[in-house]
């Protein structure tokens, strides 16, 4: 039954629908953007009505939210967290720092472009993006999930050498365990 | 009839006098002759005992004067049992000390064996004699050889201990003489059987006072609290085998004397309760004192005192079971305490202060000695299946039969104390780290044999007490039967 092409389509549709409406976010507070998450989650903006909910550990989470700048040191942790997450998984780049370094564009220890290291599904720009923007970002992600276009994880797997090379370029002392999620 | 009781006194005495002369012929004879004598006596006593158990007591009259005028020796089941025990212990002590004293020079060895012979003579005499003045003489012989043996190591402490012993011993002699005088003045006879028949004619005041004097005098030798001040020092300072001889021979003889006075000669019923009281006090005080001792032999000495207290308590019940228990206890105590003294003296052989701490970790160097000490310790606290258990059981049964529950519970409580200090020593031997300063001394072959014989006896009696209980039953019956004793002695006509 599963091998059938049409039924596969239906199954995919239901799965994507459920994934769309149940987004568990690993709020990994790497930068100053983390301060925008509480208002997004609580009464004023109430992200839970979209099915967005905090998850405590990477094993349970669907979305990795990179809230702001990433230093070389935090990047290493973020990569580990991302690789510990279970498929399907998505990354949201949050704030201009993740896009091009933002106000830290010339800092000696802040990475400039996140999507060279991790596959970003949705960027939310702004410095800081307000909760409305965050919700809009989630909505965008939901749309992409429903359309089946949120395939960052697949791309990451496909182009692992490229990502690894970029990662290793700034983390020369690469001691991380190999994950094949 | 292979011999007469008089040989028990005559032969060792003769040997004692001959030892210096024989020493002039061949020095080794000094060591050999006492052994031969004791072996002969052992054979003799076993034969006589067998004879006595079947045919009734042998009463031997000395110098042809029939009782009550002459001195008589009585070899009954009771006294025969004790004599056998004493001779056996003397033999063990001789085996043990045969090489023990080898590194000691000829002169000390000569003295040692001479005095040992004297000690045996005296003690055996006390048990055999039927005459109170004669008993006094034997007590003096025992006492004097005891003083000398205590001072065997001619050091300051030994001399002091010997002096204490001598001093209290003198008091004892004086009191004993006084007591004999009182009795003689009242009755005009010194023969025990004769006195026993006439004692009811004596005024109670004289009777009681003389009994008190007897008990005090003999109590000093029998280590009754508070008359036993000499004992710990003497045990601690005398050589190990001498300690065993004291515990096994001298004290037994003294207790025998007390018992003979109370059971046979006097007819004062309160004396039994008095025995229980002083026995209990002695037991409790001695065991309490023992637990805090620092020197091994002192501890053993206090333990010995306590056991003697228990023997007195058992005699104090006044029943046949009580006497049986007391005799059984005496036997076990003689065997076990001797083993403890003999093995203990090897455990602290080379240490300077002879403290308990110095036996630490000895089991690696003296495995057999340590094992035998542990065996002795387990046996003396009355753990089955070793010998001590049966005597403790019979004491308790006797107490229960006399409805003395309080005494019984006290005995058991004190037993716990006893257990603690023996186990502490055994634990030290087996589980503590050895002190570097102390060097172990391997026991000589003959000492080992002596200890092994005792150890084997403990096991044999423990697993199959029937080997000895028959004799003890007869002995206790013999002691209880006062009229038979009197009749046996007085019916002898030369």
């Amino acid at each position, binding site marked *: 039954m599963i091998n059938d092409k049409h039924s596969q389509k239906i199954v995919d549709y*239901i*799965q994507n629908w*459920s*994934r769309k*409406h*149940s987004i*568990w976010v690993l709020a990994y507070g790497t930068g100053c953007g983390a301060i925008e998450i509480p208002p997004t989650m*609580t*009464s004023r903006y*109430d992200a*839970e*009505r*979209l*099915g967005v*909910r*905090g*998850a*405590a*550990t*990477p*094993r*349970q*989470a*669907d979305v990795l939210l990179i809230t702001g700048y990433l230093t070389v040191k935090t990047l290493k942790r973020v990569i580990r967290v991302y690789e510990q997450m*279970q*498929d*399907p998984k998505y990354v949201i780049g949050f704030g201009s720092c993740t896009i091009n370094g933002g106000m830290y564009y010339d800092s000696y220890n802040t990475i400039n472009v996140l999507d060279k290291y991790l596959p970003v599904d949705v960027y939310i720009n702004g410095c800081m993006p307000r909760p409305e923007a965050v919700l809009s970002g989630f909505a965008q992600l939901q749309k992409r999930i429903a359309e089946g276009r949120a395939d960052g994880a697949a791309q990451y797997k496909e182009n692992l050498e490229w990502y690894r090379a970029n990662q290793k370029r700034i983390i020369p002392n690469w001691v991380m365990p190999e994950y*094949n*999620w | 009839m292979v011999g007469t009781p008089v040989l028990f006194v005559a032969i060792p005495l003769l040997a004692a006098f001959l030892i210096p002369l024989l020493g002039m012929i061949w020095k080794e004879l000094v060591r050999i002759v006492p052994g031969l004598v004791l072996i002969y006596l052992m054979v003799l006593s076993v034969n006589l005992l067998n004879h006595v158990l079947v045919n009734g007591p042998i009463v031997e009259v000395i110098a042809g004067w029939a009782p009550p005028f002459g001195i008589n020796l009585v070899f009954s089941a009771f006294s025969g049992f004790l004599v056998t025990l004493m001779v056996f212990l003397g033999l063990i002590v001789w085996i043990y000390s045969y090489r023990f004293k080898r590194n000691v020079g000829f002169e000390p060895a000569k003295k040692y064996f001479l005095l040992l012979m004297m000690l045996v003579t005296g003690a055996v005499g006390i048990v055999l004699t039927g005459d109170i003045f004669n008993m006094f003489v034997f007590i003096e012989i025992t006492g004097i050889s005891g003083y000398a043996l205590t001072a065997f190591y001619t050091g300051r402490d030994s001399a002091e201990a010997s002096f204490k012993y001598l001093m209290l011993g003198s008091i004892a002699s004086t009191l004993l003489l006084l007591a004999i005088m009182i009795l003689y003045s009242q009755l005009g006879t010194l023969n025990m059987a004769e006195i026993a028949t006439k004692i009811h004619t004596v005024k109670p005041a004289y009777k009681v006072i003389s009994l008190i004097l007897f008990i005090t005098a003999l109590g000093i030798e029998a280590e009754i609290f508070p008359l036993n001040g000499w004992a710990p020092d003497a045990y601690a300072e005398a050589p190990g085998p001498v300690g065993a001889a004291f515990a096994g021979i001298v004290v037994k003889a003294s207790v025998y004397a007390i018992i003979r006075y109370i059971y046979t000669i006097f007819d004062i019923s309160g004396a039994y309760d008095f025995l229980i009281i002083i026995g209990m006090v002695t037991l409790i005080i001695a065991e309490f004192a023992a637990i805090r001792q620092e020197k091994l032999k002192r501890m053993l000495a206090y333990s010995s005192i306590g056991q003697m207290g228990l023997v007195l308590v058992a005699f104090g019940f006044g029943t046949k079971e009580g006497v049986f228990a007391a005799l059984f206890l005496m036997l076990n105590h003689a065997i076990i305490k001797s083993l403890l003294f003999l093995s203990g003296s090897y455990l602290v052989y080379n240490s300077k202060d002879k403290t308990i701490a110095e036996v630490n970790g000895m089991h690696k160097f003296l495995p057999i000695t340590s094992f035998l000490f542990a065996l002795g310790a387990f046996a003396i606290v009355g753990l089955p299946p070793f010998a001590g258990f049966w005597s403790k059981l019979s004491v308790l049964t006797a107490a229960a039969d006399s409805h003395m529950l309080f005494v019984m519970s006290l005995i058991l409580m004190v037993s716990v104390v006893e257990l603690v200090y023996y186990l502490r020593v055994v634990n030290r031997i087996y589980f503590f780290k050895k002190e570097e300063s102390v060097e172990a001394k391997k026991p000589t072959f003959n000492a080992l044999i002596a200890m092994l014989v005792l150890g084997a006896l403990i096991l044999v009696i423990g697993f199959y007490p029937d080997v000895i209980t028959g004799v003890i039953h007869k002995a206790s019956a013999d002691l209880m039967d006062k009229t038979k004793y009197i009749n046996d002695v007085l019916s002898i006509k030369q």
Partner: protein
Amino acid sequence: MEEVLYNILGAVVTFIVAFVVGMTYGGLTRKITARVQNRKGPPFYQNFIDAFKLASKKTAIHHGVMHLMGPAFLMVSSVMTLLVVPVLSGNNWFPNLNFHGDLIFLLYIMTFGPLGMALGAGQTGNPNSAIGVTRGLSQMVGFEIPWVMALVALMIQYKTTSITGLMDAQAQTGTWLMFSSPFAFIAAVMAMFGMFRYSPFDIVGAPTELASGPVSENGGKFLFVMMSSGSVFTFAKLTLYIDLFMGGASNLVILLIKTFALYMIPVLYGITSPRYRTEQAVRWFWGWPTFFGLLAIIQAVILK
């Protein structure tokens, strides 16, 4: 044989009902919580979506045999509880095993799951899991005391240890036990706060402090099994309470009404309460709830 098949079929149906009801209640709880916090909140079927998503998520790793078996233990405990508790009284719609066990058995089968789960959590090696487990077990020791006191009070008052026996007693007298043994009911309800682990007794899986405690290493299918087991367990426990104190239910609607009403007590209490530390929670359970439990026992002894 037919009977066995019939029983198995009944068990499956019961399980599905319990799953659906438990999940819905969970969703409603989230909705109610949101409304109390002046939020719109997720839809009431949100829990189904979450469950389905978790089930469809890939589960790539495990930490060993016990880790794999942990969720199964949990599920076994929930389902067994469900099977032993009589769901509907007076008809044959849900034939279960309830004639084979009694309350003491039930108490133990209820602790079976958390312990198995704890073993699974232990093997993940995450220190947070073990910390959460120790807290959970401590709290369990806390609330079991008033809970058992309430049960013992019921047992001695009606001289039976079986659930059906207690239900019969209610049917005969016509009064619910929550009225005839009010103290036992109070104690049991207070113990229920700890059993459901809602705030203020939710320190076991404190999400930010302990990274959700025992479940921190479990995602995907593991979490799905745990979640459904939790839903089933919730339903089973509520049904047990209904059976014991509120006279059982003769049809599904009454059952739903009663369970939902009862369920609201811990939920509403939890929404409005901050969180206790473990020792505070334990001591709380040994305070008033135990006192009420004692009163219940005294009452039972007097009325016996």
